[in-house]
């Protein structure tokens, strides 16, 4: 076994893989949230559809997206490997063990929380990612006034395999810019009309919150980045940004569409 393989098959090496993929997934969440904030724009989904097109067709982003899929899989597979090893490390269980008296609940339930998140990711990608790539979605036509871009006329265009995913024409004589794009916004809107579906998303975001409250700071501890200047910043980011702000903002999206 080479030194490199030996490093990453050691207990610490496997934890390093968990930490690095975990931090990468956290940075992805920030990008994903910023993009999804377009959903709150009152423009019939024009900005959101343009963003969806950009994310799926811009080369560098495509490369990062493959890294992302790989990270999710590696994070889950290594979690399974580590858990299997940890189960073997205690072949006979305690009759009584009071973990609640010496450690936080989140830290003891990362596997359960992670499993909820994995199921959610599969459902979530099936709904939007898969549909956007493979399903025959209707198109939206946006006629945007050149004088005042806030005046947008939205109309539906039926699916046709001749249409580009996204196209833009400026008609100077008519004084408008015409954008036709695959209408992912409508898919999002329709998905969140069912109450139990909204609930599923909110529960998943609660799991995300608990997973990251422990996971974010834990990743830095594993890497060994725990100097006294940095720890307060990591604690703050882990709890308030990744544990509260980001899950809340994501959870607000299905709720917004349900009550819209």
């Amino acid at each position, binding site marked *: 076994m080479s030194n490199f393989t030996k490093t990453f098959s050691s207990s610490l090496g496997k934890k390093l893989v968990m930490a690095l993929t975990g931090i990468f997934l956290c940075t992805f969440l920030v990008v994903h949230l910023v993009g999804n904030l377009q959903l709150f724009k009152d423009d019939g989904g024009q900005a959101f559809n343009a963003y969806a097109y950009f994310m799926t067709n811009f080369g560098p982003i495509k490369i990062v997206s493959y890294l992302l899929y790989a990270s999710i899989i590696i994070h889950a597979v290594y979690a399974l490997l580590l858990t299997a090893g940890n189960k073997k490390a205690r072949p006979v269980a305690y009759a009584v063990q009071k973990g609640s008296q010496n450690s936080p609940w989140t830290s003891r339930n990362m596997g359960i929380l992670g499993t909820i998140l994995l199921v959610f990711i599969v459902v979530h990608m099936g709904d939007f990612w898969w549909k956007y790539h493979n399903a025959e979605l209707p198109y939206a036509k946006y006629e945007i006034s050149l004088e005042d871009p806030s005046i947008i006329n939205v109309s539906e265009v039926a699916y046709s395999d001749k249409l580009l995913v996204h196209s833009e024409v400026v008609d100077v004589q008519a004084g408008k810019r015409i954008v036709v794009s695959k209408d992912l916004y409508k898919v999002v809107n329709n998905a969140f009309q069912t109450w139990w579906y909204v609930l599923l998303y909110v529960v998943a975001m609660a799991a995300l919150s608990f997973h990251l409250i422990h996971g974010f700071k834990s990743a830095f501890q594993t890497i*060994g980045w725990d100097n006294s200047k940095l720890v307060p910043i990591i604690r703050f980011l882990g709890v308030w940004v990744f544990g509260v702000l980001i899950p809340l903002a994501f959870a607000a999206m299905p709720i917004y569409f349900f009550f819209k």
Partner: protein
Amino acid sequence: MSNNMNLTLKVWRQKNAEAKGELVSYQADHVSPDMSFLEMLDVVNEGLIKKGDDPIHFDHDCREGICGSCSLHINGRPHGPKQGITTCQLHMRSFNDKDTIVIEPWRAEGFPVIKDLATDRSSFDRIQRAGGFISVNTGGAPDANVIPIPKVIADEAFNSATCIGCGACVAACKNASAMLFVSAKVSQLALLPQGQPERSRRVQAMVAQMDAEGFGSCTNTGACEAECPKEISITNIARMNRDYFSAKLFKSEE
């Protein structure tokens, strides 16, 4: 004595390493609150011996909290319900009359049960032998303070060195991980100038031995530092990880 207690003990009895054990109930009556936990077990054992029964086997030595011999997982926690003490420093006043106390051995692949509550913790010795030392030529004792060491570093190294190797960290960890023990033993030398020549080799060898002994990996729950009788901090774990990764990934020597 009016405030003596009557307790029910549920003790793990296991004939030998291979036998299948079970929890057995014993009555401990007229227990003085001033007894240490181990003295209470001594009294129970005397009763068992008088009846011709096999006494409960448990590890103990100094009985003043410095040797690391006593263990016992008491009511779901290593060394019982109090923080920062070993079982020999736990007194029966921490319990109430008519309590049921469940006493189990440390549970870990790396700590096989020898008999009843006594476990074989020689895995810790093997981890130490793998690299928990410095190699120096013997000779005349050097003058004190020849090598300057900042006070904070000296204190931190001393804190790490207070580890008594009892194994409570492993017992408390949901993964039976020995990271707190190993990281304390790595840190006490890695922090000091005398530990530098072997720093890189040491951390790699000790981690490799830790893995070979079948201990689990660290989930950063912090249970170990909460249960450590010497209150050793998980900062040691971060430091060891740092040393390990820098040795493995950023250095070209062995």
